[in-house]
């Protein structure tokens, strides 16, 4: 089965995936309507990626009172909006906060774009990867190993880390400016 993985060492918090995701699913560029959310904290040079892990025996699927969440061929749990009654139980049940709401309060979640995730395509830093389980886990290991080798974990500040943080901060400011008052 194909899975989505995020190499968080690579993520600069540029939010491009959010824009791509919201455009692909709803035709608007709005991070609030994205299925993937990047929470950035430039001051500590970290970003946390909130996205659907497509759990096995997923909580969202189990709590849905109308069986509107079903796993499709690509392994994604997909919401059937013809059945969804908008009770939001799935969002409250998700332990990762990966289900959010659109402005009509309908739940939205990652559907792996039917097997061709847009976020993977647009990520300029190869932070989001999609592929067979073994391949993704290998990529993640490689990223961790690289991180260790280049002193990303622990250790002192390096030019590479500073550059990453600056990149993220600039991009965030730009988005902030464009969407005044938007909380990210």
């Amino acid at each position, binding site marked *: 089965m194909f899975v989505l993985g995020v190499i968080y060492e690579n993520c600069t918090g540029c939010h491009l995936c959010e824009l791509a995701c919201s455009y692909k699913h709803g035709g608007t560029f709005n991070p*609030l309507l994205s299925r993937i959310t990047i929470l950035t904290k430039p001051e500590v040079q970290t970003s946390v990626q909130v996205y659907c892990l497509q759990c096995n025996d997923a*909580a969202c699927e*189990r*709590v849905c*009172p*109308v069986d509107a969440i079903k796993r499709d061929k690509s392994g994604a749990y997909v919401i059937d909006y013809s059945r969804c*009654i*908008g*009770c*939001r*139980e799935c*969002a*409250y*049940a998700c*332990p990762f*906060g990966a289900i*959010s*709401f*659109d*402005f*009509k*309060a*309908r739940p939205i979640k990652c559907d792996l774009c039917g097997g061709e995730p847009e976020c993977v395509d647009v990520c300029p830093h190869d932070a989001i990867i999609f592929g067979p389980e073994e391949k993704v886990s290998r990529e993640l290991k490689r990223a961790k190993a690289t991180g260790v080798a280049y002193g990303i974990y622990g250790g002192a500040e390096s030019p590479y880390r500073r550059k990453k943080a600056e990149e993220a901060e600039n991009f965030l400011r730009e988005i902030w400016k464009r969407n005044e008052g938007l*909380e990210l």
Partner: protein
Amino acid sequence: MSGKQLLHILPERCTGCMDCVKACPMEEPAIRIPKTPGGWDIVVCRHCSPAPCVDACKFGALWVKEDGTVFLAKELCTSCKACAAVCPFGAVFLGPTGEMVKCDLCNGEPKCVEACKEGALLYGGTPDKGLARERKPVRELLSIRGFV
């Protein structure tokens, strides 16, 4: 924050203090907190959309107001209980006098939310900050809702 205001219900935070039940201004409290093997469940209207109860009501007594509240007009209700038959949450139920009871969100100022000190009931926009606060293990949550 844009988007409509919603009642967010997080039973895993509930401690069973019943403050919300006491705070409910309805004659028969529209919120009920039953004990379950895993903790306390919160039985109150989710204000679904499209709500099955609205679909099942043939008397036009249930409808969705502009702000998203699923509203029960007692004047039009005949207590035929069709809504109770299709509600998966038991949130619209038969009161002791035979009237149907359902949360009306107190016209946009839910008193239960004001009363809840645990953050188990929140009223806010669609992406709400309060939701992101500590989450309990999913297994615990499922046991509260009776799935494990």
